[in-house]
């Protein structure tokens, strides 16, 4: 069974239609890259999947692990195993990073009928993952994303992902604003989570991320739908030729 099945999805933001009949299937263990020019609807897709309020699904369907995703509240989606790494992680002044991480983990564990972890167990769980993300302990005690550099914010997103171990991770331009070294750390984090049962959607502008996180499929999103799908080589072609030839092709059809 596919983890995610999107059919003829139409969605509006503030009354304006952004997604116009998008189809996408993601199987277990698969990594799909979604590329495309600015304004094509990539981030909208990510927000719609996570259930952001002002993003309205007007027609079509999204099934997550066989169940209707659209009806679920954002926290229900999260607890069902859907994770969104934000393009612009949100700052929450005064809220300790550890506190959010532990509260999130326990909320999800509770929803699965598992026991909550205590502070000691939590520290044991997070230690190795911090090593992977090259995050120091001091980082845990700072307010969520407040005063973090761009790279720290993105690493923090991936740290959260490693801790929460989602079944479907949507990474919205997690590579943007990262230098080469930071990109390597982020990629190592993401790769450490690759698993035959876990799927990922990488939303990105750049081919360079896909050098480090090898996708199984590459899709081009333009004008609110997938206009071309291929394998890894498509990304290289896009890197060399840009998007115009595809959007023109799509327009001609």
């Amino acid at each position, binding site marked *: 069974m596919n983890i995610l099945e999107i059919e003829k999805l139409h969605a509006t933001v503030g009354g304006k239609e952004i997604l116009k009949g998008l189809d996408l299937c993601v199987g277990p263990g698969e990594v799909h890259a979604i590329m495309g020019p600015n304004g094509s609807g990539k981030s909208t897709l990510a927000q719609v999947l*996570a*259930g*952001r*309020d002002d993003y309205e699904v007007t027609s079509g369907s999204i099934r997550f692990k066989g169940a209707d995703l659209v009806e679920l*509240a*954002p*926290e229900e*989606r*999260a*607890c069902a195993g859907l*994770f*969104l790494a*934000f393009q612009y*992680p*949100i700052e*929450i*002044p*005064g*809220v*300790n990073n550890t*506190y*959010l991480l532990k*509260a*999130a*983990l326990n*909320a*999800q564990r509770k*929803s699965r009928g598992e026991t909550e972890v205590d502070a000691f167990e939590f520290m044991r769980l997070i230690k190795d993952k911090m090593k992977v993300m090259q995050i120091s302990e001091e980082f845990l005690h700072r*307010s969520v994303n407040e005063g973090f550099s761009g790279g720290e914010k993105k690493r923090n997103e991936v740290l*959260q992902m490693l801790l*929460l171990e989602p079944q479907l991770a949507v990474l919205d331009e997690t590579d943007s604003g990262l230098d080469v070294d930071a990109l390597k750390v982020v990629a190592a984090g993401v790769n450490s989570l690759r698993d035959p049962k876990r799927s990922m959607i990488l939303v990105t502008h750049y081919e360079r991320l896909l050098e480090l996180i090898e996708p199984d499929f590459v899709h081009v999103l333009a004008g609110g739908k997938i206009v071309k799908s291929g394998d890894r080589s498509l990304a290289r072609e896009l890197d060399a030729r840009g998007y115009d030839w595809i959007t023109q092709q799509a327009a001609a059809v």
Partner: protein
Amino acid sequence: MATESRQIADLVKQKYQHGFITDIEQDTVPPGLDESVIRLISAKKGEPKFLLDWRLKAFELWQTLTEPAWAHVNYTPIDYQSISYFSAPKSQADAPKSLDEVDPKLLETYDKLGIPLHERARLAGVAVDAVFDSVSVATTFKGKLSEAGVIFCSFSEAVREHPALVEQYLGTVVPLRDNFFSALNSAVFSDGSFVYVPKGVRCPMELSTYFRINAANTGQFERTLVIADEGSHVSYLEGCTAPMRDENQLHAAVVELVALDDAEIKYSTVQNWYPGDENGVGGIYNFVTKRGDCRGTNSKISWTQVETGSAITWKYPSCVLRGDNSVGEFYSVAVANNCQQADTGTKMIHIGKNTRSTIISKGISAGRGQNAYRGLVRFMPTAKNARNYTQCDSLLLGDQCGAHTFPYIESREPSGRIEHEATTSKISDDQLFYCRQRGLSEEDAVNMIVNGFCRRVFQNLPMEFAVEAQNLMNVSLEGAIG
């Protein structure tokens, strides 16, 4: 947003959890105030002449004062002649010496409030001087304190046992003519707490008092006096809840703190009195005068307050930094929900050299609540190298509430440094969505963000109060989003 309004509507409808009335016979003076009532109060308490004279002088002054109107609050005028000025449990004549002697109904009341007195005392090592209406009924841990030489007792007892100390310090921080409410309190105060920590003594435990208003139509006029002698240290906690009532109940307490050379007083309050219903009916009028005098060099007074209750809060715990190098601190969280109105803040009066003050104020407004921060920082010409740092943040939940800031800054000393930072924010949709995407419910997300907003204040509360304060915030703002 639709969800917002729904959530705020839920929040607004939240019922006060501690609303009930204990059925205990009250020994109550008929409503009304004149000289004879004051003489009666004083006689009932068997007070020495100096105190009666002091009360009468206060009453005389009070009659010349007018109720202040500058606060950002609205309420129907108080009829001071309709209030009864003395009320005490019947068993007052032979007041209990231990918990075993306490009226079981009273203990039941504490149980309902979640204050298992002896449990709490034993577990936390806290001496509890529980005030029920006007007379102290239970005092614990006296032995351990007296071993250290610390006097911690009801105000009435202090008047009987330590009249010289009372006479020496009473009214020296908040003078009789200070303000309308404090003058009224001075004339009619019924009881309260008294603390004296002798030279060089570090008080071996946190001191705590639970105040509770119970009798209908009985204004409660608490009087608290804390004296920290040279080189001593004391931490005093105060917390309270009140039963559900329809008529407004006046509360005009006065708290005076005196810190001598090298002494330190930490005074913490969690105030959760009945705030009135969602239409603003009922609720406590809380007109409190709290002031600390850093009388000695290197002395320090720190106020921490969490104000979630009362229909009206009018309260400015202040520090007079008289001694050189003295330090004043004010950490405050004030919540105004439903129709609550809070006008609260502090005054830092710098007189001595190198005096320092810190003000951290966090105001949370929800429902139709109105929250005002009012603060004065004054550097007198003698206050060489004085410093003040003020941070004043407001958090709005919903779109029908208000946050107001009235900072007064007066510097008459050019070497001083004053910093003032202020922010007003709402809990953003982005923050909520981010937390929910990680699996937290909307409610948990709001609680987490609000508690985060209050963190710098909660950090200053003693441990057991910090937990209580967080729970209190969660209860008072359940489901609120901005």
